[in-house]
């Protein structure tokens, strides 16, 4: 069971130990994607002997997992990543973990200044991607439980202490709308070469912290690690913000500078992903802004784009 728990100073989504308090007061530093798409995952094994090698069967792992007390912006992220891992061919490694995971989301009662779910089609009480929804009620003394899928139904059947009754739902977080994602997507369609990208990206250090924390960023690398007799092939998180991501062996790099990389990040989330999969690749969780060492926020870029798109002429 994975839940938001305090680890040192931070609240993180981590394996829950019986008795540990579940922290709903702040948004966890990490996103839940690492439990479906681990930062590093074994996708192949082999034995080596000089120039000879034998590939070993590598079975995808799908440990039975409950994500408890994750926010709607987190649950929505899983629904978004599902699309890319299941269009065309299916990703067995992703799907094995995903199929074994039940998402018990909690309606969001406390947002912060970096949150913008309501600007990207979400809401503090949204149920997208959740199997079960919990809503605090009666001043935090009870939960209202709602099952949203067969998996959620199954979980609730085995739960104790769930009764029929009346309860008054507590108020949800107030997340103001910061920009119109329709106007952002509209502007992006024609502004690949806009001079404004230079300004939007100026502070970016290319550290990729935003991508690693993002619930929808899913780009990966494949790397081998081996001794003389055996080895492992890993799938590791990667990010379009890193300079080597697209660099060819020849030295040619299609995205040669940080401007091109930041543009790719914004374009992918608000233009390319909607075009390819019919949905934004952003849930407004705000982690990228909260943790950016340079103080950047994708919502600031989106607000600037919205202002530009809305301004006459």
């Amino acid at each position, binding site marked *: 069971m994975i839940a938001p728990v305090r680890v040192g100073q931070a609240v993180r989504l981590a394996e829950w130990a019986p008795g540990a308090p579940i922290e709903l007061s702040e948004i966890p530093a990490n996103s839940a994607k690492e439990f479906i798409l681990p930062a590093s995952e074994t996708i*192949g094994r*082999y034995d*080596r002997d000089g*120039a*000879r*090698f034998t*590939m070993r069967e590598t079975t995808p792992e799908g440990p039975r997992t409950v994500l408890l007390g994750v926010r709607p912006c987190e649950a929505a992220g899983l629904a978004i990543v599902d699309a*890319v*891992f299941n*269009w*065309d*061919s299916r*990703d067995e490694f992703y799907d094995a973990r995903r199929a074994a995971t039940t998402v018990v989301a909690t309606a969001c009662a406390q947002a912060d200044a970096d949150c913008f779910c309501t600007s990207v089609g979400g809401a503090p009480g949204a149920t997208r991607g959740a199997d079960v929804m919990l809503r605090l009620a009666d001043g935090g003394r009870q939960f209202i439980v709602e099952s949203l899928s067969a998996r959620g139904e199954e979980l609730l059947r085995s739960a104790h202490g769930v009764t029929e009754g009346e309860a008054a739902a507590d108020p949800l977080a107030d997340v103001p709308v910061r920009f119109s994602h329709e106007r952002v997507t509209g502007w992006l369609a024609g502004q*690949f*070469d806009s001079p404004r990208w230079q300004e939007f990206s100026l502070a970016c250090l290319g550290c990729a912290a935003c991508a690693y924390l993002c619930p929808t960023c*899913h*780009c*990966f*690398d*494949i*790397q*081998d690690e*081996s001794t003389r007799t055996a*080895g492992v*092939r890993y799938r590791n998180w*990667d990010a*379009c913000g890193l300079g080597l*991501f*697209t*660099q*060819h*062996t*020849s030295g*040619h790099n*299609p*995205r040669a500078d940080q401007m*091109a990389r930041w543009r*790719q990040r914004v*374009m*992918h989330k608000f*233009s*390319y*992903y909607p*075009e*390819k999969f019919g949905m934004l690749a952003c849930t407004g969780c705000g982690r990228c802004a909260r943790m950016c060492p340079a103080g950047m926020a994708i919502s600031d870029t989106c607000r600037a784009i919205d202002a530009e798109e809305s301004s006459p002429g």
Partner: protein
Amino acid sequence: MSIAEARDEAPGVRTFRLTFTDEPARARFFGQYRVGMFGLYGLPGEGESTFCVASPPTRTEYIECTFRRAGRVTTALQDRGVGESITFRGPYGNSFPVDAWRGRNVLFVAGGIALPPVRSVIWNILDRRPEFGDVTIVYGARAVADLVYKHELADWQQRGDVRLVTTVDPGGETADWKGQVGFVPAVLEQAAPSAGNCVAVVCGPPVMIKFTLPVLSKLGFAAGDIYTTLENRMKCGLGKCGRCNVGSAYVCKDGPVFTLEQLHRLPSGDM
């Protein structure tokens, strides 16, 4: 896959002829393979590299790949010899719509190490020669030594049913060089193949492509009749890892073959 033959083509450039480890693998591959598709060639412990399949689906006992020794994986691969094995995943990606070109003339324009992806189409069309009209090949490299498939160039030169124009960049010629001297776009313009009922397949370094496309337009080729294949860096080849994205396209799934008309809709600054 087992290395059945290894041939040096040019400094640092080698071709492997690879045979399948078993008949089901061979049959499965050729059940799917269409010309233009690519694969990921690798070695456990080193990694994988993406190259086109440089031989056509009309030759079904083996596949060939031609690649330059450039980084860790390509160096390790070239260090493997005949009789040794490498890994292969594929075929992946889309293909050149060769069947739709039946009855049409075909022009190939290639530069340097970019002949291999075009060579599979050339072979395929020559193996089915009566189905197509005129075949013109314009191929150039920096220097004579850098031309790949030298024996095949000689064969194509001798055929009565292929027009081959070879060129090297100024200064790259040798005393006995009988081809042209000049950059591919200029030599193409001079050769002036007719655009009438013709499709063009273009592959080369970005700078060659940049200056060749305007020449093709000038010769009268429509953007929908100009084909190329993008060689983006890839990892998965399956439309997941995000590395080859250009705009909303996954080069590994929606490509690698694109018409110029399709490329016009993608952000050129990301290629």
